[in-house]
């Protein structure tokens, strides 16, 4: 407690402190508003309901030029979240693979993994984003000469266009079948473990899972008919009409963010695994576990305690780095809101405040989720 006091005295000091802080912040904000008004710089949040009047290339929620800046904000936020979540997923998978590769007794594999880490970590991220975007995806053919598969999948410098599903009569039954199958598959391992403890007979779960996941939906389709109809994209004018598209901006950004962050994650994971005593590996081997199983069941769970905090940091970095998107025209929050909206309305202070608040919130939520995960692991290990 402040000043080391306790009880009432401490509480009063703290209250006074908070009140003073609130008063000072109020005075600053009030003063800023006066100054901005005197200078005729628009202020306040009224602009959020004004018409945006500009187009956005990739939107996961419906958007048109005549929507408001609030809508633009949401479009940007969703785009930022999507690229971050997918980027984090791939960064984690690649990062763990590279770390295991690096620790592998196979000389070549460990050298390749080491080379990857060194190369990717030492090139500026912006350079890598532009590399994927301009040099790799930019060298794909134009839509008229696109590479096609079965005349329904197309790869060009406008991205990947695939047939898009349109719901049919059988969709409801199909979805129910999938949900049932997923729930059953999730419950199976618990059942298997109970059986193992009670009867001592192990149960290999995966064939049942595969059977459920494929079989149930298949039966639903056979009885209730096709769940979806696929709309095939066709070239119309300059671009493809119909179908769904994954744009090159999104692909380049996700690739760059996940491969870049993966290099850092790989080092964190390697350090984490190496922090687990060698004896654990030997203990696993002496129990007759394979190298893979020892890693998975013995070493990694212990290593996770060391890995999680810096890993969380990398997740936060990836999210922050996604704001480089504007360099390749991916409409993330920073680009459409703190960029276009800011320069159209001129309300810099409000918009940067909102944007920074949102990134802060994303960071806090990410950290909270990771702490929760860490707490659960700790508990399940009885620590």
């Amino acid at each position: 407690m402040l000043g080391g006091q306790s009880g009432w005295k401490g509480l009063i000091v703290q209250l006074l402190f908070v009140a003073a802080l609130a008063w000072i912040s109020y005075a600053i904000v009030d003063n800023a508003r006066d100054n901005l008004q005197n200078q005729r710089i628009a202020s306040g949040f009224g602009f959020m309901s004004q018409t945006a009047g500009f187009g956005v290339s990739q939107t996961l929620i419906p958007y048109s030029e005549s929507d408001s800046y609030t809508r633009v904000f949401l479009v940007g936020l969703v785009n930022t979240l999507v690229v971050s979540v997918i980027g984090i997923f791939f960064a984690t998978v690649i990062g763990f693979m590279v770390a295991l590769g690096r620790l592998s007794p196979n000389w070549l594999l460990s050298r390749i993994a080491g080379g990857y880490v060194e190369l990717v970590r030492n090139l500026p991220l912006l350079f890598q984003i532009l590399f994927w975007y301009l040099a790799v995806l930019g060298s794909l053919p134009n839509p008229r000469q696109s590479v096609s598969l079965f005349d329904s999948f197309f790869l060009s410098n406008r991205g990947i266009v695939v047939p898009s599903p349109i719901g049919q009569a059988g969709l409801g039954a199909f979805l129910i079948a999938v949900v049932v199958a997923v729930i059953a598959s999730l419950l199976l391992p618990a059942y298997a473990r109970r059986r193992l403890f009670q009867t001592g007979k192990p149960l290999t779960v995966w064939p049942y899972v595969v059977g459920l996941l494929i079989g149930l939906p298949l039966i639903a389709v056979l009885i209730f008919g096709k769940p979806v109809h696929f709309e095939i994209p066709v070239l119309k004018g300059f671009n493809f009409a119909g179908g769904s598209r994954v744009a090159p901006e999104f692909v380049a950004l996700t690739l760059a963010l996940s491969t870049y962050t993966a290099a850092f994650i790989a080092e964190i994971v390697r350090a984490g695994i190496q922090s687990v005593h060698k004896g654990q590996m030997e203990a696993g081997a002496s129990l007759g576990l394979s190298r893979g199983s020892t890693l998975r069941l013995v070493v990694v769970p212990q290593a996770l305690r060391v890995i999680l905090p810096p890993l969380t940091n990398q997740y936060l970095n990836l999210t922050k780095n996604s704001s480089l998107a504007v360099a390749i025209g991916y409409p993330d929050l920073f680009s459409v809101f703190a960029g276009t909206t800011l320069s159209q309305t001129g309300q810099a202070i409000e918009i940067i405040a909102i944007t920074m608040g949102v990134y802060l919130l994303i960071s806090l939520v990410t950290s909270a989720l990771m702490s929760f995960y860490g707490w659960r692991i700790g508990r399940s290990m009885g620590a």
Partner: protein
Amino acid sequence: MKRVSLVLSLAIVAGFTTQAVNAQTLKTVKDRGILSCGVSQGLPGFSAPDDKGNWTGLDVDICRAIAAAVFDDATKVKFVPLSAKDRFTALQSGEIDVLSRNTTWTVSRDTSLGANFTGVTYYDGQGFLVKKSLKVNSALELNSASICVQTGTTNEQNVADYFKGNNMKYEVIAFGTADEAIKAYESGRCDVFTSDVSQLYAQRLKLATPADHGVLPEVISKEPLGPLVRHGDDQWFDIVKWTLFAMLNAEELGINQSNVLEMGKSDKPELKRVFGTDGNLGEQLGLTKDWVTRIVKAVGNYGESFDRNVGAGSKLGIARGLNQLWNKGGIQYAPPIR
């Protein structure tokens, strides 16, 4: 993050100062001994550094002319390169004294940014650049096209208006800087690059084979480009405004860089007022009596600056067109110096 730091300094200035910080720009500039001028990040003809780091261009000349009028030294300018989306914040936060960066004068910018436009240095309009191999002859054939544009520009909004107004589909990809946009266009990501027509010509020079790309005939908007200063300092506003007017009047009166000293000796009443050998118009502005001489000596008259930077004498080779003087068929018209 340039933008965030600009905004933070704006917030600090607004939150912690008790009065308008910028009421005395002329004094601030004189005390500092150098003019701080916001320009583009490199737009040939308007504001671009050469290989020795010397800035040239029509927009640059405005700042050099202001510096000449204030210091009698056109080199006393610090050029601050700004992207389209950062430019206004840089002016608001006081990082620059004047923004001279091919900026379109619109009512919203004039009223909500705490800035005032001082005049029009170049009458422009928005157009489209396409690969000639696409065989497109009119913007109305651009239905479903992908369009590269720089974010934070009027161009981004105009293109939405135009396609919506003509019931055409489009996909607009907005980039942070002009270089990024033009590279994506060149790589084939976009069918079209759009911006003010003068800038299309300037950016085209950056392409590997400029001759393969053509500008479509349609001009879809009015883009009067001009300098801006902060709201609330009338003296500084007048100085920047009359610097351009001085260049235009000089051209109209036949005063140029090579004859300015000679003509300064004239005893025609009109010229005596302009050169300050009679009256004190320059001093009324807060400058010196010989302000026009200083300006023309440093950068020439408007026509000379135009020709040298964007016109016949430059790589861009743009015709005077609308930017010809009013008495020669254009619409450039400056109020008289009297």
